[in-house]
């Protein structure tokens, strides 16, 4: 230390003092921004990145978690008949549910948009109820509606002289039931997003179209849909990811049965990972869709950004 001090040139006193440089640094906007976002960054690192990285690590271990096996668990999965059935079911579940949610949300948003402002608030509140109730709770209510001993639906069908429907006992009906409940829970989210988008479409566009003699369908096709394109894409992407990762609805309604024919990635991962004591395989199952969904997200977001920059 002493040597260094003796080697300092004569101009040394001109350098800013450490306290002064700290003051300058703290005045920089970027430093303040980093400091203010630090809690969130730490939260993301500890609650998102660490578990995700740990999940990837687990997926590369052998069953007893003592040995690194690389992509061995994934290779094993790709050879299983049940795995490909779960892939098909997850796609069927997610894609059909998102399509129905989007259609219902779009139609209902239009209805609500055309209601007078004061009454619209009440309708918005009522229609959001399925989305606001915790899904585990509302799915339990659906479970009772589908219950073989106490099904209200079957009771109504019986009143009309029909045969009871095995809502969760038959594979096709069970698939229908889990998709139905997902659509019921998720449609209000689409409705509220589309309603917000509808409100941002300038009325002048519709007025001009009317003067030009555009039909109802032409107004929808040439004005509403293009103006809502970004919000439709974002909503569909978000819902697709959430629906692919769904767990509670399937777990409560059918637990993946009958014959594994309603399993989606989440429920099958739980069944193999926790119930069967094969945590690495469970981790591998839950990670299978990550690259596919990430790719879809990249394409959709890139498209949205491109359109944004064109504007």
């Amino acid at each position, binding site marked *: 230390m002493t040597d260094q001090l003796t080697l300092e040139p004569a101009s040394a006193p001109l350098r800013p003092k450490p306290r002064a440089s700290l003051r300058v640094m703290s005045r920089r906007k970027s430093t303040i921004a980093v400091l203010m976002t630090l809690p969130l960054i730490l939260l993301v690192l500890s609650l998102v990145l660490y578990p995700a990285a740990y999940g990837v690590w687990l997926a590369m271990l052998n069953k007893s978690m003592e040995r690194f096996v690389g992509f061995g668990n994934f290779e*094993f999965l790709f050879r299983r008949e049940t795995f490909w059935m779960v892939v098909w079911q997850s796609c069927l579940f997610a894609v059909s549910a998102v399509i129905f949610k989007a259609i219902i949300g779009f139609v209902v948003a239009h209805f609500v948009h055309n209601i007078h402002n004061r009454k619209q608030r009440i309708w918005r509140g009522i229609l959001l109820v399925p989305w606001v109730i915790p899904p585990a709770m509302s799915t339990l209510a659906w479970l009772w509606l589908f219950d*073989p*001993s106490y099904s209200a639906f079957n009771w109504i069908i019986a009143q009309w002289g029909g045969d009871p429907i095995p809502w969760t006992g038959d594979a096709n009906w069970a698939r229908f039931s889990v998709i139905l409940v997902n659509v019921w829970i998720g449609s209000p989210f689409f409705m509220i997003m589309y309603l917000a988008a509808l409100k941002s479409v300038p009325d002048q566009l519709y007025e001009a179209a009317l003067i030009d003699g555009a039909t109802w369908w032409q107004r929808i096709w040439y004005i509403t849909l293009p103006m809502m394109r970004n919000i439709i894409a974002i909503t569909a992407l978000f819902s697709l990811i959430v629906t692919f990762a769904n767990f509670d609805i399937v777990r409560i309604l059918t637990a993946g049965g009958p014959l594994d024919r309603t399993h989606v990635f989440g429920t099958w991962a739980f069944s193999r990972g926790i119930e069967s004591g094969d945590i690495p395989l469970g981790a591998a199952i839950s990670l299978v869709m990550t690259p596919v969904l990430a790719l879809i997200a990249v394409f959709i977001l890139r498209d949205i950004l491109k359109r944004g920059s064109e504007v």
Partner: protein
Amino acid sequence: MNDSSRITRRRLLATAAAAAPAAYLSAPFVRRAHAAGTLSIGFWDHWVPGANDAAVALVNEWSEAEGVPVSIDFITSQGNKLLLTQAAEAQAKAGHDVLSFGTWYLPQYRDQLEPMDDVVDGLRAKYGEVNDTVRYLGYVDGFWSGMPFTAGSQMKGPCSRIDLLKRHAGIDIQAMYPAGAAPQDDDWTMETFLEAAKACHAGGNPFGIGLGSTSDSVDSIGAFFNAFGGQLVTESGDIVVAESDGVKAALDYLRQLGPLLAPDAPAWDDASNNKWLVSGNGSMIWNPPSAWAVAVRDAPELARNLWTHGAPAGPAGRYSPFLPYFLGVWRFSPMKDEAKSLLTFLGQESSAKALVEASSGYDIPAFEKLTKFDTWAKVGPPPGTLYHYPDPHGTMTLSISGAPAPHNIAQQIFTQGVMTKMVVRQMEGESLDRTLGWAANEIEGFLRM
């Protein structure tokens, strides 16, 4: 190496059980005057109201006697909470000192659990052998990794409607299984059972045996497989499902029985059979007496017509599903001595009796000399309805689906519901070869280490 201490412990246990609590206090279970910390216990949260209170009372009694502070959590198995707790604690190597383990989870975590040979051997010396299922699940790799615990241990034998069996099938189930006496069940065979199922189905009150993938379904169907000698995998791990005549016979039988069961049986969970019976639709389910207990509360008229009894005999014997619970002590626990002391206390006859009483007979101790408590003989209505529940005359083999396969395979056969899925596939009209091939392929996938 433990011989001398084991003998001493047995003597002390015998003295403790026979003498007053003062004698119990003198037994050197805990070698310290006061424990260094709080003993943390995670019990399974019992279905039966009031049953948890008995466990708390017992632990408090021990805690006061030993001067060891305790904390108790009751962890529900609903939503697999107990399973998740086990997995989390095993990963984190932190958590409760003593934890409940159901069926397959003791073998799964055996490497992380403290050996309990001294505790279990002491109890076996006093109360006789444990049943085969308990031994299969608890004694793995040459040591006991947990103590068979009364609370939660259950049998899933048939519980029938006295009136409906008489009306539809002409069977007097009370005469076949009289209260307080040995069963007269020579005619209670798989053939009789199938005829009764047909009659009850035709009468509009089908039997309610689940064909889903939860434990009630899997365990019950496993007992049918066992009754026909249908093993999927041998003790040494050989996959014999495709060649086993017993499996083929069981599937042939269950293909006939399946359509006679309640509609939606392939989608049943562990609550469905209870609801089926209490709704008044069903004439029989396979379940512990929780369904009867719910009926006593919600449908007393119906409860007076329920009778729990033994399983029908097949060509390979009479099998009833048994699902045991264990208490294990993590190796990371700093209070192993205190934990073992508590487990020894909870394993005593007086503790088992209190737990059985508090659960209205739901719980069954694993030891052969502890299956004839008054509780089962006296609870009702109707009086004697649970007398045959713990198999007091030892006429059945208590089984678990997947046994005797090595545990890592059997656990997956059980949790993935391979047997019930085979039955449902057969009911859907799939060829036998295709079903057997599918099962063999699934099981091959379970062999990965």
